[in-house]
């Protein structure tokens, strides 16, 4: 019982941290200037990075406005089910006290890399402003 509680401390802590972040970003509007610092990459280079708009996307998702969230950063919205799924499996593994025996297929991880790099380039291309935050 105690050991199971100790094993579940990691997933519980991650859930609490995520809830705190979503709660804060939902309450403190990133659409207003001065609430958060600018993205360092955008600040230094003037180009959007794959994460630009993620704060505004999280804010929109906290207010259940999925369309605005996709408009700000589709990758952030797509990451939510992926992270939830990973968290659920992590929690189940921790509850059962088992070691991880599964590794994601390499092609999936390489594809993820390709999607992120492509998104990074395309959202800076003139004419594809719908990908920009």
């Amino acid at each position, binding site marked *: 019982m105690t050991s199971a509680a100790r094993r579940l401390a990691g997933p519980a802590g991650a859930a609490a941290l995520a809830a705190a972040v979503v709660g804060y970003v939902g309450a403190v509007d990133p659409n207003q200037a001065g609430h958060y610092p600018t993205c360092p990459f955008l600040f230094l280079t003037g180009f959007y990075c794959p994460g630009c708009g993620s704060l505004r996307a999280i804010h929109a998702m906290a207010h259940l406005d999925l369309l605005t969230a996709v408009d700000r950063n589709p990758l952030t919205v797509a990451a939510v089910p992926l992270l939830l799924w*990973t968290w659920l499996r992590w929690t189940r593994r921790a509850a059962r006290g088992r070691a991880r025996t599964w*590794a994601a297929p*390499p092609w999936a991880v390489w594809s993820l890399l390709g999607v992120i790099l492509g998104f990074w380039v395309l959202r800076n291309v003139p004419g594809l402003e719908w990908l920009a935050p």
Partner: protein
Amino acid sequence: MSTDGPYPPSAPEPEPGTPSWPAGGQQQPPYGAPAPYGQPGPAQPPAYQQPGGYPAGYPAQPVYGPPAGPPPDNYLVWAILSTVLCCLPLGIVSIVYAAQVNDKWLRGDVAGATESARKAKQFATWSAITYGVLLVLVVIFYIGIFAVALGTGASTAP
């Protein structure tokens, strides 16, 4: 990245020379001829006609399945978080290493997978540290602008 999948911990080690790759519909091509190079294998198909596009002569060892036991952590979640939330090229590098971890692990290259896992962790940590430093610099910059604005405001005030 996650738990229980098609590889039970008690999976038997495949025989050397047995071409085995993950089941479950993964499009992983069998690379390498089953027979070692330099031996006249009778009626073996040539190794360079594999559909996966691996260069000829690439596998120097016979094909093993994934090793028994838990695979090394590839820190992919941290890589994704640092890429999506922290917008840093270092996150991209850690995704590359994360992919290498699983790639090498499923080929049976335990040492290579462990080494890539070490680097993935290293780059995830570095991206977090760099992000913190940049955040502090930006905050200092804003405070500086604020101070300058205050200063000019004070000097032009009557």
